[in-house]
């Protein structure tokens, strides 16, 4: 037993927009307020929206738990890997090794108050994306684990 079909249709329509908005916050983390943690939480809320509109089993059949687990692991690995790679460039741990060097995320930043260019920032956007992926997996798994545990507990219904 779950929500009515109107709520289901609404959740279906709303879900990609919440996802796009979360990715927008993550990718623009170095230009506008927001960042990895906030955007990841917004994306995780899209998954939580599916869990409230459908039952837990319906979500689990189509959205595998392995995807969330792998995304969490991948985010943390990307985070540490980016930080460690600075050592090979002769910088300190967490040194900004992409700044002003390559084609991606490496345009010199314009000083002063300006709306900004997406292609700046060095490792800051990369770390943003890594943290975003990690938080998305972590929050989704947390609520999925709590829902699953509660469902097994209440066998009486």
């Amino acid at each position: 037993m779950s929500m009515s079909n109107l709520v289901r249709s609404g959740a279906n329509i709303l879900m990609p927009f919440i996802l796009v908005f979360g990715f927008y916050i993550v990718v623009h983390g170095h230009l506008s307020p927001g960042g990895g943690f906030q955007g990841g939480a917004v994306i995780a809320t899209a998954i939580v929206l599916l869990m409230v509109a459908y039952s837990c089993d319906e979500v689990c059949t189509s959205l595998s738990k392995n995807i969330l687990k792998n995304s969490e692991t991948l985010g943390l690995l990307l985070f540490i890997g980016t930080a460690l790679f600075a050592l090979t460039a002769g910088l300190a741990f967490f040194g900004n090794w992409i700044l002003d060097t390559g084609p991606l995320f490496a345009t010199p930043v314009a000083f002063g108050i300006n709306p900004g260019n997406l292609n700046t920032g060095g490792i800051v956007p990369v770390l943003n994306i890594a943290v975003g992926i990690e938080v998305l997996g972590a929050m989704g798994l947390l609520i999925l684990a709590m829902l699953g545990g509660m469902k097994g507990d209440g066998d009486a219904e």
Partner: protein
Amino acid sequence: MIRYLLTFICAFCTYLVLTAGSGEIGLWSAFEIGAGVIIALVVAAASTKWFCPSTDYRMANPLRWILLGIYICIPFFLEIIRANIDVAIRIITGNINPGIVKVNPGLKTGFGQLIFASSVTLTPGTLTLEANEKTGAFYIHMLSVPQDMVKKKTVDAADIFSYFKIHEWVRRIAE
């Protein structure tokens, strides 16, 4: 395949609206467009199963979206204003006569039922309480039930709106 393409287009347009005014290509810079394409691909891969659950491409027709815009701007907005004046008078005077009635507008698709329920909730003194998916019947809580509606088993959908035939508009948009 077409389902993924539709979700991709919706996500990409939303991203473009969010990042307007960032560069020279139209209003966008090249990197914004590239990031938008990647993000829209990810979103399409993740949410096509819910955004386009069936192979029913009725809503992909842009004419229906233009009709939806016209519907929101003219009949829906006027009904909202009239309903709010009505509810405001009832708040001030406290003269209410509530009840739950049954309406069957005969809408079959989920999107049509969604638009009709939202319209009913936001317009004239009514609130959708329950919807039956198979028969398309709505159970509506009315702030003030007229005398002739108390007797009828199923109320005609044209009676609960005042100026426009909302269910006809919704049928034209969604079915």
